[in-house]
């Protein structure tokens, strides 16, 4: 199948969701499985998506939302953006914090990141420090940071807590 054509005609995710629902004969009892499939395809459960599932499984929308919100594994908004806090306290600044900052800024082409300068986090012995998606990296070199960014992009740029 040519991807170009497919993209022009229909969103391939729609077909995949349709297949998932068909696998369960559009039974309302398979709601959780279908919600799962939908989240895997779209990353999160938007209102139009929930409405569509309700319609296809012939369930009341309120029950669909009620069931979905009962489980922690479903999300209702796009995955969180990535974040990086670069410590620019004296020690980290001296150890090349600004260079790390520039490296992060450069890769943030679409502006999907939250990049912030932080003040001393109290681990000056491990300078420079970057808090990358909430986890501290110590004695960070530019190469290390670039590798980490590449890893993030390669994993489909999904949010830190995706699939939880």
């Amino acid at each position, binding site marked *: 199948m040519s991807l170009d054509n497919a993209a022009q005609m229909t969103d391939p995710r729609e077909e995949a969701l349709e297949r998932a629902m068909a696998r369960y004969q559009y039974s309302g009892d398979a709601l959780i499985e279908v919600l799962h499939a939908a989240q895997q395809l779209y990353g999160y459960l938007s*209102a139009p998506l*929930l*409405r569509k599932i*309700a319609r296809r499984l012939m369930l*009341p*929308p*309120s*029950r*669909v*939302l*009620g069931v979905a*919100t*009962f489980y922690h594994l479903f999300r209702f908004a796009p995955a969180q953006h990535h974040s990086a806090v670069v410590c620019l306290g004296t020690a980290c600044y001296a150890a090349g914090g600004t260079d790390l900052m520039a490296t992060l800024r450069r890769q943030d082409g679409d502006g999907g990141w939250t990049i912030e300068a932080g003040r001393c986090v109290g681990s000056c012995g491990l300078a420079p420090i970057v808090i990358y998606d909430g986890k501290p990296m110590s004695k960070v070199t530019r190469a290390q940071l670039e590798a980490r960014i590449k890893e993030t992009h390669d994993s489909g740029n999904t949010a830190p807590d995706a699939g939880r």
Partner: protein
Amino acid sequence: MSVRTLEVDGKMITALEGQTIFSAAWDSGIHIPRLCHLGGLSDVGACRLCLVEIEGQKRLQPSCMTKVAEDMVVRTNTPALRAHRRLIVELLLAERNHVCSVCVLNGACELQDLAAQLGVDHVRLRPQYPKLEVDLSHDRFGLDHNRCILCTRCVRVCDEVEGAHTWDVAGRGKNSRVITDLGEPWGESASCTSCGKCVQVCPTGALFSKGKTVADMRKDRGFLRYIVTAREKKLWIA
């Protein structure tokens, strides 16, 4: 249908096989406290106010969910049960905002009545008073989440009697809320027929008719028996 005989609070009563303890007791004039149960709707055992002691069983049982059995010995009003019920009511009062003096249902609220009946004159728990929304988007009705005790009567009457299933409960734990359709404002709900059944069955002032004052906001729960008997037995009772 066969008949069962059992003892409730020292009184011998008869009940139909398959009847719940709650309803058998009620028919014999013993009114067990309740909030989620409402005759004509299915039972969910959510509020636990109707808990009773059954001889030979260690655990308390919700009488609205427990079927009668031959020679059962049930106690519905022991000091221990009264203490449990008082605590449940206090938990409900502490969980949201139940300041009756500013509620449209003041004087006709099932929660307020129950609190009075159980002698709850103060709440020993720290009130949570979360600031919850009031949805006034429907032309005729309003919903004040602050007064909702999540009994799901509205969910059941709308699903089982009206057939619209506009309501459901979203979230869990202290974040649970009744919702209409996909959580949009009630006034935008495509499924609501504006029949008003949910407002009538709601035990508190969470669901109310707009434009009513404290004096005239009263709820009628008798209509349910009428509709349900008509549907199930084709009998239109006066």
